[in-house]
């Protein structure tokens, strides 16, 4: 049986060119057969699938499971659509499709009521997929003095179910080791994003995305080694800065835009910050390793965390957080995207647009779908948007 960090899941030549490594990673990230997960399973490993946005993956990692971020896929939906109504986003459908087709069928599946649609997923999954599916209620009353205690107990409950899957107890020492691994991962991801902000010409958004997203498909030790090896090499790339607009991309917290869409944006803009797969970067600081590791993780979720349209916290009004992101990244404009049929994303677009209007920050509103192809129209609109600003 696989144990943390012992099974290399990527077949990469880390000595090869950066471009070649990125191309290989892109293939893995886009592969709807989930080869890294298959390899983990070949080694006898168990898999915990967690639906967007955030899950304390350390709990699974400490138990020797592979935590896999379930974030849909651009697959042909043969069965899933008949389980949903018409007005439902694509990620839910494709995530179910992956399970129904067997392409990604975790040993334990955890969802969160992040939105009205996703709160139904555990039930639909439970009725149709033999693996256990459950809901983790992350607190929405982040401002209660009791939310951290509640969450800590809730994490312990989930940990109990994880222990049931792996058939052994998970002690605090293992949890602390996992915290250290993930702290290192968070540090490396912060570095990755710092590079994007400081020298965006070295790391266009679609490449940065691949380096981030692969983390949801492999063990974090391997991700750490990959990032540690690549980050210095990315800084040495011979790319020259170009006269492109610095933008923030907002709207990738749940359903993911196709990589091609990100590449299309990169042709006109430097995406200097974004919320793509924000759950992988949800905790913004190191989680203290001393003390009760589960309580520390719970506190970090509430106290040192990012923001998204699906978490309610009076201390973090989303529009203010977005403005901070824009200012922090010295961006000149924002792309405010939402997945089609995504209620929280679409609602937030209104608030973002009003706040950006008031702050005088130009923005470009768009909708996307993970399955979409053909980005010429978007490119023309974006090009016009950028030109209007450049020549205003």
């Amino acid at each position, binding site marked *: 049986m696989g144990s943390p960090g012992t099974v290399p899941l990527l077949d990469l030549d880390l000595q090869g060119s950066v471009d070649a490594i990125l191309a290989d990673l892109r293939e893995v990230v886009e592969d709807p057969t989930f080869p890294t997960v298959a390899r983990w399973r070949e080694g006898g490993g168990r898999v915990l699938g967690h639906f967007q946005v955030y899950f304390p993956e350390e709990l699974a990692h400490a138990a020797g499971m592979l935590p896999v971020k379930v974030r849909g896929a651009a697959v042909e939906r043969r069965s899933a659509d*008949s*389980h*949903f*109504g*018409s*007005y*439902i986003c694509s990620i*839910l459908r494709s995530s179910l499709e992956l399970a129904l087709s067997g392409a990604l069928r975790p040993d334990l599946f955890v969802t969160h*009521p*992040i*939105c*009205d*649609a996703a*709160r*139904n997923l*555990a*039930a*639909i999954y*439970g*009725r*149709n997929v033999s693996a*256990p*599916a*459950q*809901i*983790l*209620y992350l607190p*929405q*009353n982040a*401002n*209660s*003095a*009791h*939310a951290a*205690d*509640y969450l800590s*107990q809730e994490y312990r*409950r989930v940990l*109990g*179910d994880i222990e*049931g899957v792996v058939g052994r107890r998970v002690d605090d020492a293992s949890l602390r080791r996992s915290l250290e691994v993930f702290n290192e991962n968070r540090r490396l991801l912060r570095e990755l994003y710092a590079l994007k902000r400081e020298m965006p010409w070295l790391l266009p958004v679609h490449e940065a995305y691949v380096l981030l997203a692969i983390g949801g498909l492999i063990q974090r030790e391997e991700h750490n080694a990959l990032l540690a090896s690549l980050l210095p090499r990315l800084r040495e790339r011979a790319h020259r800065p170009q006269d492109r607009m610095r933008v923030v991309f907002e709207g990738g917290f749940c359903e993911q835009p196709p990589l091609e869409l990100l590449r299309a944006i990169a042709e006109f803009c430097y995406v200097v910050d974004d919320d793509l797969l924000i759950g992988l970067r949800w905790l913004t600081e190191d989680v203290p390793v001393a003390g009760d590791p589960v309580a520390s993780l719970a506190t970090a979720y509430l106290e040192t965390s990012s923001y998204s*349209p*699906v978490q*309610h916290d*009076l201390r973090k*009004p*989303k*529009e203010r957080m977005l403005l901070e992101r824009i200012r922090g990244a010295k961006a000149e404009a924002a792309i405010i995207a*939402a997945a*089609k*049929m995504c*209620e*929280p994303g*679409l*609602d937030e*677009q*209104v*608030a973002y*647009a*009003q706040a950006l209007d008031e702050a005088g920050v130009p923005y470009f509103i768009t909708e996307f779908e993970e399955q979409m192809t053909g980005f010429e129209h978007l490119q023309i609109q974006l090009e016009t948007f950028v030109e209007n600003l450049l020549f205003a």
Partner: protein
Amino acid sequence: MTTPAAEERTGRGARDGARLFREWFADLTREAKPGEKTGYVFVMGSLVELLRAFDMRVVFPEITSLQTAVRKVSDEYLSLAEDHGFSPDVCGYVKADYALQLRRGDHPMGRIPPPDIAVLTNACNTYLKWAEIWERLHHVPTVTVDVPGSRGLPGSVRTSPEGHERDRRYVELQIRELIVELERVTGRAFDIDRLREVLGHTNAMGRAWRRMQELNRSRPAVYDAMLEGTIYLGVANAMRGTPEAARYFADLVEEMEEKAARGISPLVDREERHRLIFVGVPCYPIFRRFYQLFSEWGGVFVGSTYMWFASGGLNDDFEYDLAHPIESLAEGTLRGVTSAVDSMLFHDKVLLDAIDTFGADGVVYHPVKSCRTVSTGLADSRRAILEQRDVLCLYVESDMMDKRVVSEAQMKNRIDAFFEGLESRRLRLEAAT
């Protein structure tokens, strides 16, 4: 043809309900008394008893929104919100309310005062997005009470009395925090005896509510759970915790008992031919017509998940323990919200029970564009029910606010075909016996 006597028999609950509703709107429309505050709450986990204990006026924005559709003006409100950037694809209730706020509370039934505080639970995520709008528009406090519900399909996750008590305790601690906030907003001290009194009224109403549901097992049924049920729901929510509501439902039970004893059906001009269960939210833009499309065929909704998830836990056989009002309010809120959410997400077993106990021969699923909370899993639920019971299921999609996605002609075709199926099944069954 409807006779005056029949009207009299079947219309009392509806008439009194409409009067109570008008009075409620009139009360919201009048000038606030000095120091009087207004709270906005939602039907799932409203905690309205707590606000009443502070003598606040209470607005249920879901109800004020749906009334714009019933009064056939929702399109004006939706367009105004969409002009301000809201997508056609998001919950119509939110958009109607957003427009209502922009129009300074101007509503077809009166004028809705702005909130001084909003109280919500996590029973629907759109509640959270909605409350954020009030934070931005009115800069008022909003308090979200987390109510952790079932963690999976019954039997699929471990549950324990200790786990339940942990959740209850979390709800209680948040309620205690809410009380402090309400004291701050209203400038009044919390009066636990007043809360006791209010909870007592809800207890009485709950007993009557459950009895009323039971009575609909009679053949013929005594009310239509989609048409009249919606009126009862409105009163149960808007008036919850008042003596008027308790009295209204006591009268209603009396009326229903009599109807059951005398075999009086809500269908005044035809016999009950098909007993149906309604799943989802009614089609308010054509509410009366929507009902007729079923009643014309002798179809009666004997049960409805709407009366379950939107009743604030009244279906649950639970009464507040007046000796421990806060602890018990926490228990009731946890159970009520859990059962509401279960009735939308994990309703297979309860639907099967309802089919059996009400002797239903058809299930009508009405998913709506606006409400993903209710609608996301209905196609899947339909598959599950069809596998387990010999009933016919109709799955017809539209909206409860947005007339643009309501196609009456298409709907009629589907509903007629459904009833033709029910009729031929009935003939087959009759021939076999």
